């Protein structure tokens, strides 16, 4: 299997499977699981190519820029593709069971039929986004991703979910247009949309500054950084559980990935110290605000959704921390690794929450009292995912937070050190609120039986998020390939 087949397969196979799943609804679930297995194989092969050859570029159809479309893969994009593949595989496995339950599936027959094609097209859009080599292509893939994400939010068909979907649509589409306007400005100045070429030429005059502001505003809205997070909790909490896992775990990471790429590969980030500090402070505010809101929630899925608002904050610390050359490698590495470990932990948390909501038939945290005896596996999965969110050792989040802490110490930004530690403490409070409730003693009515796949898939994914801290050497080695910041020895 050649490199060409691998990189094209990552984009085309889920796209073709999505269309096929739309036509042949009967075999959609089997098709999706088979595609997911194939994608994991492709993703690891791609990482293998990058590890042995360094960053690679592929011209689709041999046309080349500016007329054709180029694909580009380096360590960061390969890691993101692997993240998508593993979370996607877990979600596919979970969904086969989730949508087989009558109240999720057969009663709203059409919803299930639509879920699989949407899921596969979303996957194709994610891979295409991570492998794009030009900023206009990033716009197109972001739109593909957003359109399928909107439909996934509205899938439940309830009034709340329709409202959340429409709100998300209006915000995400305006955000994309801001981004597109920025791209148009950059193209008119430099005559190229390839981000490597742009990065080499970029000045810091007025049109560039306008473009940077437009692109940042668009991407911040899409990534839901505080105070632009207002649309997120309703959207993520009202979607069906597998969709929530995809939205929180992967879709937000896509727009963050675009911003990370832009910031370090295209923008002259050394000149953007003030903006970077602002983003860092907003990130810190997101950590505190999101965690406090999560602690106050009465509904399980809203708690998990607010936890996402908080965790997104950590990612944005990189823009402030990396402006110090001594800290940039640790900060960049920490943020990239954090987005992977958060994807695993958050997808596991949402899937476990979905199983718990199904078991009790109630969305309230209070109704979980004493459920640990009847649903030991699911509660354990939620608790482990919680460990991944808090960042206790040896989880992947611990390692990423450690890198971020190191960066904040070496750049002398004590404020962020304090916020990172406070964030972990607050995360512990909201996770333990749920776990403590489920261990509460006393009488409780029997819960419904949860299918085995819905119990074990979140557990495996949560274990993976913890395992990321143990097997960190390979992924961190991968991240070094094509990294935009000067590499230092990791502690």
């Amino acid at each position, binding site marked *: 299997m050649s490199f060409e087949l691998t990189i094209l397969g990552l984009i085309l196979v889920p796209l073709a499977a999505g269309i096929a799943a739309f036509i042949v609804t009967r075999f959609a679930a089997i098709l999706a699981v088979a595609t997911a297995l194939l994608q994991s194989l492709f993703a690891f092969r791609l990482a293998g190519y990058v590890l042995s050859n360094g960053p690679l570029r592929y011209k689709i159809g041999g046309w080349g820029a*500016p007329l054709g479309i180029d694909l580009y893969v380096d360590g960061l994009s390969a890691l993101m593709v692997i993240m998508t593949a593993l979370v996607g595989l877990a979600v596919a496995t979970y969904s086969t069971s989730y949508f087989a339950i009558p109240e999720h599936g057969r009663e709203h027959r059409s919803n299930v039929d639509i879920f699989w094609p949407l899921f596969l097209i979303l996957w194709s859009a994610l891979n295409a986004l991570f492998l794009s080599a030009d900023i*206009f292509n990033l716009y*197109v893939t972001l*739109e593909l991703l957003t*359109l399928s994400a*909107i*439909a996934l939010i*509205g899938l439940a*068909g309830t*009034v709340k979910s*329709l*409202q959340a*979907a*429409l*709100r998300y*649509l*209006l915000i995400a*589409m*305006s955000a*994309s*247009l801001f981004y*597109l*306007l920025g*791209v*148009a400005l950059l*193209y*008119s100045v430099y*005559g190229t*949309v390839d981000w490597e070429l742009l990065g080499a030429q970029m000045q810091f005059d007025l049109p560039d500054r306008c473009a940077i502001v437009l692109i940042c505003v668009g991407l911040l809205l899409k990534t839901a950084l505080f105070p632009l997070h*207002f*649309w997120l*909790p*309703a959207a993520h*909490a009202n979607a069906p559980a597998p969709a929530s896992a995809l939205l929180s775990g992967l879709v937000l990471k896509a727009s963050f990935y675009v911003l990370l790429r832009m910031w370090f590969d295209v923008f002259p980030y050394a000149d953007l110290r003030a903006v970077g500090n602002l983003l860092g402070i907003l990130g810190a505010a997101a950590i505190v605000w999101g965690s406090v809101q999560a602690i106050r929630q009465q509904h399980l899925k*809203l708690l998990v959704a607010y936890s996402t608002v908080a965790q997104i904050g950590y990612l944005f610390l990189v823009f402030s921390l990396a402006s110090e050359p001594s800290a940039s490698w640790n900060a960049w590495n920490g943020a990239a690794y954090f987005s992977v470990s958060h994807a695993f932990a958050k997808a596991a948390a949402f899937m476990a929450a979905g199983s718990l909501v199904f078991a009790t038939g109630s969305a309230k945290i209070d109704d979980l009292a004493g459920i640990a005896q009847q649903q030991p596996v699911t509660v354990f999965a939620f608790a482990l995912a919680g460990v991944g969110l808090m960042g206790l050792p040896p989880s992947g989040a611990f390692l990423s937070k450690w890198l971020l802490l190191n960066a904040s110490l070496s750049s002398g930004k004590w404020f962020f050190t304090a916020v990172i530690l406070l964030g972990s403490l607050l995360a512990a409070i909201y996770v333990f609120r749920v776990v403590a409730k489920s261990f509460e003693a006393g009488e409780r009515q029997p819960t419904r039986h949860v299918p085995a796949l819905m119990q074990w898939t979140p557990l495996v994914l949560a274990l993976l998020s913890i395992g990321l801290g143990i097997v960190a050497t390979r992924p961190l080695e991968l991240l070094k390939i094509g990294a935009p910041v000067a590499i230092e020895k990791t502690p």
Partner: protein
Amino acid sequence: MTTVTLYALCGVILFGIGFYGVIICRHLLRKVMALNLMGTGVFLILIALARRTPGDRPDPVPHAMVLTGIVVAVSATALALALLRRLHRETEIGDLPHDAK
């Protein structure tokens, strides 16, 4: 003021009006129309900027971008209208509540 600047400025104004509409308008149908206005603004800017290349022929790349953008805008509008119709059928109103949850 050259023609190009005039058109580009016009596009910026359209973008602004559209964004204002998305935020201010109460009815969802108006919001969706405002979103389309924003898109039109961006497309107008792209078309105007395509004229800036030296020579008689305009640069084809922004034109291709506009075509792609139109496809995206049409799909987004279709999806928005489908969701809106469904919401209207369920609730009989076309507004979003202020309370986000």
